[in-house]
């Protein structure tokens, strides 16, 4: 399933031409609630190329999770069009086009670390050396020593790394990540940010990443999608013009601050 985009060259933005891997037109999601309805997402338009690293940023309740769940076919849109790799979200799910990392690690407490990573491979009946593949993924996130441990024996950051390994295990071209580092301390978070970027560069996957941290969004992304609440909609899209591979020096780059300010202004505008 490894696709051609795993080019050794450094991705620029937009990284590639050709058909978009995600294409969203006038997407809308309305939830019925007792005595009315909540417009979680309205008039969303977005096109994402293969190999991009996209961050969705915005205040709580602006529909970031909803947008991600719509793309993952975990919710059905009430209006609009949504195509993943040229297919409907349902077809894309059936073809196992994406891995999903939740805000909580959501590891199965009755499975060891290794067996948690094996889960998707077993469910999908992936041919070949599954055990070897799962071990390789654990190594990728630096947890190969813990394969026999149960999740509760790991710290929160380690658990989240296992859940990333689990999402990567079946080598999906797309990775959806919903505030995966939201509950972690700053130091662990910055460390995992670097690891995530390394993974992204090495595998050439497309990542769609939800966060509500402006520095995190700027540091990671090729483009940042700024969203605002009530009703949830896309306020603007900021292209991040920073060189790859990124490192701690990136945070000192003047452009880093320019982009951060740009995003902050957009967020404020939506708040007014």
């Amino acid at each position, binding site marked *: 399933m490894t696709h051609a985009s795993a080019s050794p060259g450094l991705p620029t933005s937009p990284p590639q031409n050709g058909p978009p891997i995600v294409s969203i037109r006038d997407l809308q999601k309305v939830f*019925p609630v007792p005595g009315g309805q909540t417009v979680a997402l309205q008039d969303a338009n977005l096109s994402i190329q293969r190999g991009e690293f996209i961050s969705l940023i915005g205040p709580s309740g602006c529909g970031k999770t909803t947008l991600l769940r719509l793309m993952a076919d*975990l*919710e*059905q849109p009430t209006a609009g069009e949504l195509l993943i790799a040229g297919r409907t979200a349902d077809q894309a799910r059936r073809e196992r086009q994406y891995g999903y990392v939740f805000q909580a690690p959501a590891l199965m407490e009755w499975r060891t670390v290794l067996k948690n990573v094996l889960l998707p491979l077993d469910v999908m009946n992936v041919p070949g050396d599954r055990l070897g593949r799962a071990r390789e993924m654990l190594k990728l996130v630096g947890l190969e020593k813990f394969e026999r441990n149960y999740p509760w024996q790991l710290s929160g950051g380690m658990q989240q790394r296992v859940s990333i390994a689990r999402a990567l295990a079946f080598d999906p071209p797309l990775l959806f990540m919903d505030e995966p580092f939201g509950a972690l301390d700053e130091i662990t978070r910055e460390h995992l940010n670097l690891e995530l970027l390394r993974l992204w560069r090495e595998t050439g996957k497309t990542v769609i990443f939800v966060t509500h941290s402006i520095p995190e969004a700027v540091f990671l992304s090729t483009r940042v999608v700024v969203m605002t609440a009530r009703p949830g909609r896309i306020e603007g899209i900021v292209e991040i013009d920073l060189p790859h591979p990124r490192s701690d020096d990136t945070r000192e780059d003047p452009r880093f601050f320019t982009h951060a300010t740009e995003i902050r202004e957009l967020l404020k505008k939506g708040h007014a």
Partner: protein
Amino acid sequence: MEQTVTPSRTVAARPGAALPTAAALLVGVGGLLLVCLILPVPGEGAAPEARAWLAGILALLAVGALGVRGAAQGMSRAAQVAPALLTGLLAVLTAEGLLRAYAVPAGLIPTPTRVLAALWNARTVLLQDTYTTFVLEALLGFLAGTVLGLALALLVVRFRFLERGLLPYAALFSSIPIVALAPVIVKAIGLDWPSKTVVVAVTVLFPVMVGAVRGLQSASPLHLDLMHTYAAAPTRTFLDVRVPTALPFVFGALKVASSLALISAIVAEFFGTNGHGLGFRIQIEVGRFGLDVVWAAIVLASMAGIAFFSLVSAAETRLLPRR
């Protein structure tokens, strides 16, 4: 299995389904009622042709079940309560019909109508038995066991020594089968009701004690620290922090204990009484094949059990703040 993701899919109640549902229920219940009226009481009249009746009764039951299924659709109050009531009704009618169709002798399985009759005819004796078993034995024993269990729990929580010395025995004691305990106590104390009260108290004591200790010890360390920063007196901390956290645990234990109490009372009566009590009645009447009285006693015991449980639940809702 995937349905769980979108619960909205299951909500839709078809409005047009009310008529067939009502019809199915009418046919099921009415038909079974008719069958029960037509068929003779077992032992009277000519034995009916069982096979044909069986087919008929099962068919009517199936129709009734379809009706129940229809009545269970939707989220209304009626849809949540009616199915259980209708199922009870259908079950009783089916039992009556089948017992009549097969002319099962009353000495083997009495028909529901016979049980009702026995309930009425033997009402004075049965009510006396219920009073003995429920009030004198189960309720008194439950109260005594609860008071004792709570007192022991307080001691255990207060003195670490007792926690390590006494608590392990409590867990041990609660796995002794009541049936093995009862004869010993009945022999030691005598045949009158107090011996059964003691059996009940002993069986109730240990679960209540274990539950209360667990509850008292589960107070949040943060809350305890908070009270400490207030320089609160130990009694205040106890009343304001430990007791509220312990109450849900205590009531959990009390609910278990309430059904345990009735079971112990009945089982203890199997090992000797002065001629009163539901357990005694059941044993005596089983020996005489007076199964209609046995069933009547079971019905009363069940009602006592449900009443007991409801009593504890009512106390719980009064004392526990609902989330």
